[in-house]
């Protein structure tokens, strides 16, 4: 009996558990700490890593929910760009707070469109959101006319991405998403949907509503992420958040939320986001060029998926 219980715990630590992600983070910190102790292991550098991680986490919380439900959202980078540009363009006309809200709302609208197409036109989520990735990027270029809008010095919007504001935003969002996922019916239904859509339907869960809400939440989080990113860059540009979706998905999976759904958590995504940010930061510090960084990140994503994937469920990845 005791042995069996230990076995259960071990299994949990592999899928949706937090042990392996924490160990990965530790390994990354130890390696770069050993390679460049005076530059990697400093408080200012830790702040840089945390700030970077906060951006990934903000967008990643929404994507985590989508992945736990058994789907995927590839559109977050482009949606972030549209939200950032809309907010930056509107500040002079409507004031900072309404502009921020509208920026986030536009993210929610894009997410809702993803969800509606996914549910009612029955297109697999990776295709819907891939289409949105291109569409939203096109819209970003269209509405910006290819120009960038400075947010440096713009009240509120300009300060969102600074340390520690961005970390506090991520922490507040973490609390909200954690309660939603772990303490409400909606969160449980998201897991049930990722566990078995067939059974979730049998027991009468409102699946269509859940799916649309999920993608909308992911869009809202991506919208907020776009504002933070624009603030970090000092300007909202049409290429804002390019390939952000890859970093975010890597953070989610590295955190221990497998693409096969049902298990995982937003707390895991925090660890994954810090780990991937520490990795990127460490690679820069030891002087690797950005092309090598991209190769390393790609390999980390494959590695994380290999560890977290449930092969028996691979047929149902949507």
């Amino acid at each position: 009996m005791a042995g069996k219980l230990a076995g259960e715990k071990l299994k949990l630590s592999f899928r949706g558990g937090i042990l392996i992600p924490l160990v990965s983070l530790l390994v990354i910190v130890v390696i770069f700490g050993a390679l460049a102790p005076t530059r990697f292991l400093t408080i200012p550098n830790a702040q840089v890593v945390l700030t970077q991680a906060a951006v990934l986490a903000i967008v990643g919380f929404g994507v985590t929910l989508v992945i736990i439900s058994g789907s995927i959202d590839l559109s977050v980078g482009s949606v972030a760009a549209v939200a950032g540009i809309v907010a930056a363009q509107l500040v002079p006309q409507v004031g900072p707070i309404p502009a921020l809200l509208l920026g986030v709302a536009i993210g929610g609208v894009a997410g809702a469109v993803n969800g509606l197409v996914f549910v009612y036109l029955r297109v697999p989520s990776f295709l819907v959101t891939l289409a949105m990735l291109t569409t939203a990027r096109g819209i970003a270029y269209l509405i910006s006319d290819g120009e960038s809008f400075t947010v440096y010095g713009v009240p509120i919007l300009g300060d969102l991405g600074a340390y520690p504001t961005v970390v506090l935003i991520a922490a507040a969002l973490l609390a909200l998403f954690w309660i939603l996922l772990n303490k409400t019916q909606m969160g449980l239904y998201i897991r049930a949907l990722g566990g078995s859509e067939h059974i979730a339907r049998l027991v009468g869960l409102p699946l269509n509503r859940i799916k649309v809400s999920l993608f909308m939440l992911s869009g809202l989080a991506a919208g907020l992420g776009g504002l933070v990113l624009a603030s970090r860059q000092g300007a909202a540009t049409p290429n804002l958040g390019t390939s952000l979706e890859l970093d975010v998905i890597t953070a989610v999976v590295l955190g221990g939320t497998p693409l096969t759904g049902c298990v995982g958590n937003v707390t895991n995504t925090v660890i994954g986001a810090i780990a991937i940010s520490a990795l990127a930061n460490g690679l820069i510090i030891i002087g690797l060029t950005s092309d090598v960084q991209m190769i390393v990140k790609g390999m980390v994503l494959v590695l994380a998926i290999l560890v977290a994937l449930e092969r028996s469920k691979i047929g149902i990845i949507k």
Partner: protein
Amino acid sequence: MIQQSTDAAPVVELRNIEKRYGQVSALRGMSLNLHKGEAVGIVGDNGAGKSTLVKILCGAVQPTSGEIRLNGKPIGFNSPHEARLSGIEIVYQDLAVIGHLTITQNVFLGREETRSFAGVKLLDNRKMDRITRKLIAGLDPGLENRTRVSVDSLSGGQKQSVAVARAMAFGPKVMILDEPTAALSVEKIERMLTLIRTLKESGLAVILISHRLQDIMTVCDRVVVMKSGALVRDLHVCTTDIDEIVKLMVSGGEMGAVSGALGSAHPEGASTRSG
């Protein structure tokens, strides 16, 4: 010969149920009555229409024509969820539990207990755990201490206990068990049969779909033989034996005489056989 329970109004009446899939008739005028505290075994060869009948009863499939009455009132289900809300529960052969969720989460899925906290509806896990522990303790002693582990880590028999607990959790009127003994060890089969008796005694109407005729003869009051989507014979178990049932399943009853067990209690059952 007619049991006392058949004197009372039936809990469920199926009248002249037909189900066609295009040109194919899965059910051709099937009728069946179910009474409180009664277990009915449904047998028939593959393709006899057992599973279509069960699917109609549990709301997964809608009949082409015919009437379902629950406690005398005509009723129709658009989904398994609606059937469950009306008190008709089914334990599927594949158990339909979600492996990564806990025992408690599976038992309550779709009908969670919540409490309000600052205007937000949160899951009342403590309450659900308490109810689940009590339910599971009665079904599978020892398992009640593991209500928070994921169902994946349980044995097949334990998973079935979870599925049964889910079906029992909300005071059902009718319980359908689809091949409940198929994946069980001999010892667990005995426990399942005891459970069916307990369910009967507590006043439920039980439908048992099983290939194991000896199980049906042991715990059921009636056995309903189907072939080609229609009723062949509706028999009291005390008036028949396994040999006769097997013959009826194979022949469709053409060679035999109409059973006396049908009697006056189920005239519609006898009349629809020809149609």
